[in-house]
């Protein structure tokens, strides 16, 4: 499972950082920073899906 994050679309709602700090950090301005390099470790698949499902700006995507 691969994760994609768009800095263009992100408005810093910080839902992802709250739900999955293993996958997302935030920068000093409150924008998300993706911590993994593309591939999501199996144990974080569920959390990755939660991030997608709760990002109001559709800035996070998962692909197989």
């Amino acid at each position, binding site marked *: 499972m691969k994760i994609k994050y768009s800095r263009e679309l992100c*408005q*810093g*709602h*910080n*839902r992802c*950082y*709250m*739900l999955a700090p293993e996958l997302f950090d*935030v*920068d*000093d*301005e*409150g924008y998300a920073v993706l911590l993994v390099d593309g591939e999501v470790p199996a144990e974080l698949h569920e959390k990755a899906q*939660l991030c997608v*499902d*709760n*990002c*109001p*700006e*559709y800035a996070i995507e998962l692909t197989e």
Partner: protein
Amino acid sequence: MEDLVKEPVADWATDFDHSHPDYGANAPAIWDELRTTCPVAHSERFGGMWLPTRHDDIAAIAANDDGNYTSQRVVVSAVEDESMPAPIGGAPPITSDPPFHADARRLLLAPFAPKVINEITPFARQFCNDLLDDALAKAQANDGVFDAAVDYAQSIPVRVIAKMLGLPPEDGDIFRRFIHQIVENPVDHDVADEDSIEVYLDAQIDKHKADPKPEGDLIDHLLRVELYGEKLSDEHVRGTVILLLIAGIDTTWSAIGSSLWHLAQNPDDLKRYRDEPEIRPFAQEEFLRFYAPVTMARLVAQDHELRGCPMKQGDWVLLPFPAANRDPEAFDDADTFIIDRQKNRHGAFGLGIHRCLGSNLARMELAVALDVFVERIDEFELVDPEAVRFSTGQIRGPRELPIRVTR
């Protein structure tokens, strides 16, 4: 608004009035009806305004890709606007348009970023506990009754933002009066100049100027930062302070109050909130979705059509994020409150470039306020559903919420 008699609304599709008490009382039912019958409703009130109720339309207006709308004014009002012209507007960045908006907004992002806000959590927690000490003492002498809106929810955001801005904590009543003038009563009001928010804040800002602190509060920060190589103008600093006062107080008060209103009437949800801390982050988001307090406005910047409706330059457009949050196209079981809803892309904090700058702060305050409340109070109920009073206008939440502590 209570002091005004409003013309009755003949038909919500052609004559709606968001400041009418009937709207305050029945908004979700009105949106649901309009969404299927007339998704972009119109009214001649306030000089002409539109009310979209579908999530996709509201998101598209907020995104404003074609520049059809301006944020010059975000609170519908019958009063002429005398503030700074676009793209700055009277209270940057909320009244600003691109490209200026992003530059003004960037100045404020760091002090409202999550890690900075986390550091205020212990202060907020202590303050909530102090408030409950007083409220519970009051309840003890009063058959278990206190007002959860007035004695608790109301004071939390006031105290926190006063601390962040560096304004005297004892001036809370003064800010509340200003807010009432500006957002709750959007008709002409005569305010003596010496009582205006401008005069009050100019004095406070002058105090900060006389005693600048490098690691100081938000007013120090605004006086220190530069935009395009220059310090901010006095009007910009003042406008932003007004914005931070207004944007954070009634909104957060409403969010906390509506959540407590829900818990008072839904003992099963109260029990789950208390006993299952792992669902709390989801519960807080569901409170925000279901009881989203804020409807914003835009002005039409250029003539265009929306779903066939003729939007004319200068018309008002309401952005009812709470209506977007209940659109069945965007949410499963949109009309049901699901305390641990897992999929929740709600727009309570707005969508797009104006995303609430204070959202990290507001979430922290909501979480702390509810957590402390359920730690201290096991069970509570409404004294009388009829005694609950909701606000009218663009910020919706309980303003009087008498509850009885039963355990």
